[in-house]
C-alpha cells in the first residue's frame, strides 16, 4: 500500500543488522519519547487529562505541521515562510469576524477569503525562492519577517484609512487600525463541535481530525500523480530534472503555493479552536513550532513524511502539555518547565539545520571525489 513510505517514520524496515544505524538515524524522536515519558511521569497528571489535551492539540496543530511536508519533498527545505500562509488565514478570519458570519458558513468564508491571498503569496514566495536557490530556508524566514511588516501596515494603518471597516468594536479608539484582540465568538469551536465524540473520558473533535486525515490522504495521493513524481524528482536533483525536461521552477512554485494555502487553512483551523485572534501575534511562532514538531518526528530538511509529521506533532505537544507541571513538581517552578519547552523547540531546529549542512557538505565532497 504505502509504496513511497509516506506514512513510514523510519526510513528502513527494522532488522537485527541495521538496528543500530536506525537507532542513530532516529535519535531525535527516540530521545523525545524518553523525554516525554520522564516528563509525563513527573507531571503527576492523570492519563485522561493528558489524553484530552493531546487530542485537542493534535486536532488543531497537525494540519499546520502537515503543510510542511510538500516543500521538503520538493527540496525547498523547511518552510519558514509558513507564517505568510498563516497571515492569509488570519485575514480571512478578520473578514469573517467583522461581518459576524456565524458557524460553518463563517469558517468556509474565511477559507474562501484566504485562498486567493494564499495562492498569490505562495506564488510570490515561490518566485523569490527560485531566485534564492540553495538558501530557501533563510529566504523564507526573512520573507516572513518582511511580510509581517506588510501585514502590520495593512491592519494597523490601512484599516479605517484606505480600507473601509464597518465593525467599529474591532477598531482602536483612534479609528485607525485593528485592536490587538479579535474575538472569534461566531466561529469558535464550530469545526470541533461539528462532530464531538466521547470516547471514555476523552472528548474527540472528529470533524477536525477528519480534515487532517483528508489532507494525509491527499498528500499520499499526490505522491502517485505526475505532479508528485516531478516534485520528488526536483527535490533530489534539480539539474537532472531540468535536463529531463521537468519544469523545475514552475514545480517549485506550485509546491510553495500548496504549502502556503495549507498554512492558511491550518491557521484557520488552529484559531477556531483557540477562539481568539491576536491580530499582531498569533502567526508569530507558527512556523517555528510546526517545524520543531515535524523535526521531532524524525523528519530532516531533505526528508519528511506524513507519519513523521503526525508522530512529531504528538510528541512535541505532549511535551508542551506536561513540561510546566513537571517543572513545578521537580523544580518548584512551572516557569522553568515552560522555559524548557521553548528552549527545546529552538534547540531541535538548530541541531537539525546543523546536521543537514554537515550532511550536505559531506555529500558534496563525496560527489567530487
Amino acid at each position, binding site marked *: 500500500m504505502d*509504496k513511497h513510505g509516506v506514512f513510514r517514520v523510519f526510513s528502513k524496515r527494522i532488522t537485527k543488522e541495521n538496528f543500530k544505524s536506525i537507532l542513530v538515524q532516529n535519535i531525535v524522536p527516540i530521545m523525545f519519547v524518553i523525554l516525554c515519558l520522564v516528563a509525563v511521569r513527573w507531571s503527576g497528571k492523570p492519563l485522561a487529562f493528558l489524553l484530552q489535551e493531546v487530542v485537542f492539540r493534535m486536532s488543531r496543530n497537525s494540519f499546520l505541521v502537515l503543510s510542511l511536508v510538500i516543500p521538503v519533498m520538493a527540496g525547498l527545505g523547511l518552510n519558514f515562510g509558513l507564517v505568510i500562509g498563516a497571515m492569509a488565514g488570519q485575514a480571512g478570519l478578520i473578514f469573517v469576524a467583522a461581518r459576524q458570519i456565524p458557524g460553518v458558513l463563517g469558517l468556509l468564508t474565511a477559507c474562501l477569503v484566504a485562498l486567493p491571498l494564499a495562492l498569490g503569496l505562495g506564488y510570490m514566495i515561490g518566485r523569490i525562492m527560485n531566485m534564492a536557490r540553495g538558501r530557501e530556508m533563510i529566504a523564507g524566514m526573512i520573507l516572513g519577517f518582511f511580510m509581517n511588516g506588510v501585514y502590520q501596515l495593512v491592519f494597523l494603518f490601512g484599516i479605517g484609512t484606505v480600507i473601509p471597516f464597518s465593525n467599529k468594536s474591532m477598531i482602536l479608539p483612534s479609528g485607525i487600525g485593528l485592536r490587538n484582540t479579535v474575538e472569534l465568538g461566531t466561529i469558535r469551536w464550530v469545526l470541533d463541535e461539528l462532530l464531538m465524540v466521547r470516547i471514555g473520558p476523552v472528548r474527540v473533535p472528529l470533524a477536525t481530525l477528519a480534515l487532517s486525515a483528508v489532507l494525509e490522504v491527499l498528500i499520499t495521493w499526490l505522491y*502517485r*500523480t*505526475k*505532479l508528485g*513524481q*516531478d516534485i*520528488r*524528482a526536483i527535490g*533530489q*536533483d534539480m539539474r*537532472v*530534472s531540468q*535536463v*529531463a*525536461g*521537468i519544469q523545475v521552477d514552475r514545480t517549485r512554485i506550485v509546491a510553495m503555493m500548496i504549502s502556503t494555502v495549507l498554512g492558511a487553512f491550518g491557521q484557520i483551523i488552529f484559531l477556531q479552536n483557540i477562539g481568539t485572534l491576536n491580530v499582531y501575534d498569533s502567526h508569530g511562532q507558527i512556523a517555528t513550532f510546526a517545524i520543531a514538531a515535524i523535526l521531532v518526528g524524525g523528519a530532516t530538511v531533505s526528508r519528511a513524511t506524513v507519519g513523521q509529521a503526525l508522530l512529531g506533532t504528538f510528541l512535541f505537544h505532549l511535551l508542551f502539555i506536561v513540561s510546566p507541571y513537571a517543572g513545578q513538581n521537580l523544580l518548584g517552578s512551572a516557569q522553568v518547565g515552560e522555559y524548557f519547552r521553548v528552549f527545546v523547540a529552538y534547540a531541535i531546529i538548530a541541531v537539525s539545520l546543523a546536521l543537514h549542512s554537515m550532511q550536505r557538505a559531506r555529500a558534496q565532497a563525496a560527489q*567530487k*571525489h
Partner: protein
Amino acid sequence: MSGYVLEMHGITKDYYGNRVLNDVTLKVKPGEIHGLVGENGAGKSTLMNILFGMPVIHNTGGFQGKIRFRGAETVFDSPRQALESGIGMVHQEFMLIPGFTVAENIKLNREPLRDTLLAKLAGRRMKRLDWPKIVSDSKAALNMVGLGIDEMLPVAGLPVGYMQFVEIAREVDKQGVKLLVFDEPTALLTETESEQLLSSVRTIAASGVAVIFISHRLDEVLSICDSVTVMRDGEVVTTMSTSDQDTTIDRIAELMVGREVKRPDYPKRAKEPGDDDIVLTVEDLKVDMPGEEVHGVTLRVRRGEILGIGGLAGQGKIGISNGIMGVYPAQGRVAKDGIEIPLNDPGQAYKQKLAFLSEDRKNVGLILDRSIEYNISVVATLVKSMFQKTLGVGPVGIRVRDKKSAREFAAGMISELDIRCTGPGQLVRRLSGGNQQKVCIARALALDPEILLVSEPTRGIDVGAKQRILDLLVSLNREKGMTIILTSSELAELRMVCDRIAVIYGGRLVDMLSPDDSNARFGMAMSGRRAEVQ
C-alpha cells in the same frame, strides 16, 4: 531520400572570433555505428552541441552550415527539441536521480499516466502514474541493453557501471529514437562492463538506430564502429570505413595527432640535461584532485630540462603539479636534490625553490582586482618576507609592505617580460589573457625559483600571445638555467618546447616520449597504450 538519417554539411563555428569548427561534414546512416575521435579541443563536443541546439551555441552567435535530420533540413533551438525529434544522448556524467528506482529513472519525465477525475479539472499533472506499465517498459528496456537487475532497486546503491546502463536503457526506451549519441560511455567502466556495453550498442544499432560513438579508446572504436570520422583542430581529417584494411589503430592515432610540428631552433645548452643530474624525484605520487586523480606516478626530472606532461583532459596530468605543490591532497614522496619536500603544505615547496603557475589562472593564480605590482609581489612577501621594511624605533618595530621596492621590481619585470600595460598600478583584470599570464610568471620569478611548474600556460590566450609565452619559458630555461615542468593539453606546444614528454593516462605514466617521436606513438600513448619499442 539520401539514405542518411543525419547529415551535417559544412558546419563552421566561431567563438568570439576564434574558429573552433571549420567546414565539418558528418553523415550517419540508419543502423550505422559511427565513431567520432579526436584530441581534446578537436571540436567533437562543439559539433554535438550544435546538433543538440545547446544554448551555448545560440548565445555565441549560432553557426554556419546545414543539418539534415531524417531528410529534412533542421536547426534545433533547444536540446529538448532535439530530444523530441528523436535524437538521444548518453551523457558522460550520469543524469540519474539517486533516490529513484531504476524504473523511475528510465521513465523520468516520460511516465505513462492514467486518467483521474481531478486531471480533468486541474490538468495533466494530476494524472496518476501507471506503475504496471512503468515496470513492464523498464523491464523491456533493461533486457535490450542486457542488464538483468531488479527495476525496483534504487539507483543510489548501484555500481557505477550499472548506472551507465540505466542511462542507455532510458534512451532505448524512448519511442522513435533514430539517432543515439554516446559520449565516452566506457570512460568509467571496467573491462567486462565495457564489453557488455559495446554489445548492447551493437544490439541497439541492429534495431535500426544510428549511433554516434565518441571515445578515446581507439581499440573500442575500431571493434564496434562501421566507420570513423577523425577530427583535428576543428576540421574533419578523414572519414573512413573500419572494414578497410588501412584502418588501424596506429593510423587513426596518427591522424588524430598528426600535425606537422615545427620545432624552432632553440639555442643549445652548454651541457644538455641528462640522467646523471636529477634535480627532482617524484615517487609513487597519488593526488586526490577531483576530475584529475593521479594514481601513482614516478618521475625523475633532469636539472635544466623542460619536461612536458601531456595527456587528455581528466586523465590526471593536471593533478601532478598540484600534488607536488600541495594544492590538492597527495601521497607519495617528492624530493629536490635529495631533500624531501613534505606534501600537502604549499609553503614547503616554495621553500625548496619551486614555483607554480596554476592552470586556474583567474581563480587561484591572480587577484584580479589588485594591481600588477601587488600581484607580482604578494606571494614573495608571504613566503620569503620580501618587499617589506621595518617601521619603528630601535629594536621595536613592525614589518610593513615596502611599496617602493615592490614597484621597482614590478617595473623591472614589466620591461623584462614585455607586459603590455599602463604601469605597475594597473588592475590585473584589465589585462589581456597573455599579459595576465606574464604577471603570473613574474610573480613566480619574484620567488627566484629553481624549478618552475607551469600548468596550461596558453589556455584561453590568443594565438600570437601563446607563442610569446612559450618563447619566454624557453628563454628562462636557457638563460637562467631554470628547470621547467610544463603541463599542457596541447600536445603541439609540448612537442615544440620540451626536451621530454611524459604522457599520462588513467592517472598513470604511460610513456616517456621524445618530441621527435612519431605521431602514431603519441596518439597511442594519449589513448593509454604504450607502443612496443622496435
